[in-house]
């Protein structure tokens, strides 16, 4: 082995080691600052991670666009059918007086809230876009209690990383990280355009996370779960977990 090739081998080895440890340090830092999405693995993991990391850095303090009243859509499209089952119909017949929102998981005081209780908490109304990943959209005024307020009432534990929210409809749930869960515009919504939230738009309760696309705004929500890992709470759809784009 000649000197030159040995030198090349050593510098090459050092460069490779530096590169790998650099990447490892970057990954650790990114993970510590919440820049790695749960779907970072797989063939599309690199793109999903770049999108999530860059948008998390960019949107740390950003607010979803809010619109003047004149831009509220006259024809908001209620995508999909409301639940048909007996239980839901019975609750609907009683004006959802018996609807409960259970909050559990990594919380100090698990609780269950009635609609009336939720409506008694500090209220927020905002006129925002609901944009579906398919391409259509509408603007409405949404009224509800900030999710952060509900989480404050139950006391989230320090290791909490995600909030999973469940629809009363079977196999329908989604989740957001704490950045979006604690964001002031993320609402447990019970009103739309000045009236009760219609069943077609997710009544009586719907999560609205206006900095993400519509599929993160799950309808007919009756359960919140605070967790540090999404391994057991992975939606069955193959859609990317982060929906800020």
């Amino acid at each position, binding site marked *: 082995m000649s000197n030159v090739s040995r030198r090349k081998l050593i510098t090459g080895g050092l460069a490779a080691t530096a590169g790998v440890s650099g990447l490892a340090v970057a990954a650790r830092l990114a993970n510590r600052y919440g820049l790695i999405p749960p779907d970072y693995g797989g063939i*599309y993991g*690199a*793109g*999903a991670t*770049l*999108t999530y990391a860059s*948008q998390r850095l*960019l*949107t740390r303090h*950003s*607010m*979803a*666009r809010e*619109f003047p009243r004149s*831009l509220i*859509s006259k*024809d*908001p*499209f209620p*995508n999909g059918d409301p639940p048909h089952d007996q239980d839901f119909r019975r609750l609907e017949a009683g004006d959802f007086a018996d609807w409960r929102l259970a909050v559990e998981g990594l919380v100090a005081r698990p609780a269950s809230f009635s609609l009336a209780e939720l409506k008694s908490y500090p209220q927020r109304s905002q006129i925002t*876009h609901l*944009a*579906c*990943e*398919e*391409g*259509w*959209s*509408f*603007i409405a005024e949404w009224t509800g209690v900030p999710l952060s307020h509900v989480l404050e009432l139950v006391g989230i534990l320090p290791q909490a990383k995600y909030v999973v929210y469940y629809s009363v409809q079977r196999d329908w749930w989604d989740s957001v990280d704490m950045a979006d869960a604690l964001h002031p515009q993320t609402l447990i919504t019970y009103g739309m355009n000045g009236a009760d939230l219609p069943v077609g738009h997710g009544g009586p309760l719907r999560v609205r996370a*206006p*900095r*993400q*696309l519509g599929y993160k705004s799950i309808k007919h929500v009756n359960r919140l779960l605070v967790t540090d890992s999404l391994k057991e709470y992975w939606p069955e*759809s*193959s*859609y*990317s977990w982060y929906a*800020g*784009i």
Partner: protein
Amino acid sequence: MADSAWVPRLATSVAAATDTPRHTAVVRVTHWITALCFFALLVSGVEIVISHPRFYWGETGNVLTPSLFDLPIPSSRDAVQTGYGYVLPDQNGWSRYLHFQAAWVAVLTGLLYVVFGVLAGHFRKNLIPAGADLSWRFKRLAEAQARSYNVLQRLTYLFVIFVLFPLVIWTGLAMSPAFASAIPAVVTVFGGQQSARTIHFFVSVFLVLFLLVHIVMVCLAGFRSRMRAMITGRVVSYKEQP
């Protein structure tokens, strides 16, 4: 006179023909990565558009509002009335993953290309029209393409690189609710998110038209020699026809 003027030119052409450098390594590598990304973006983009082949202007639009225009294609959602008696399968999950992954690779590759293009003088030497290149003659297409581009080609490439690509990236970002929350002007400048989506579609159509013309030109100029130039970087078998 004509002959004496012709011979030296032929001589230089033949001399240059044996083995002339044509495209630098950066141009070749970024070209093929971009080509691959463009294909991925096109396939996934068509897939995504199928889920709502209606276009609008302004901030909002959905199946309950009138559209600007509809594409005469079937849809992957039963909510959209297309006139076709069937609904295509929903493939948006992987399509959206692939679209944004390919977009990242394309944008990073494009940045590398633009930085190199400025630093190495690629734009100045090869793409910005210079006095000597102000020739519109297509008779010399094969010869001109083998060594440099004519003014129409130069302007087209510059338009694609500095107008169409930035515009398609910009309108893409304008559709992102999170990105628009951080930088609202990215979408308000177009008059709304649906306007941005419509412009994104038209810019994509222009890029596809460019690609088709580009491929036709490559074939007319000599498919083998043009492909060899963009793969090996050299023009080898160039012959001046009498």
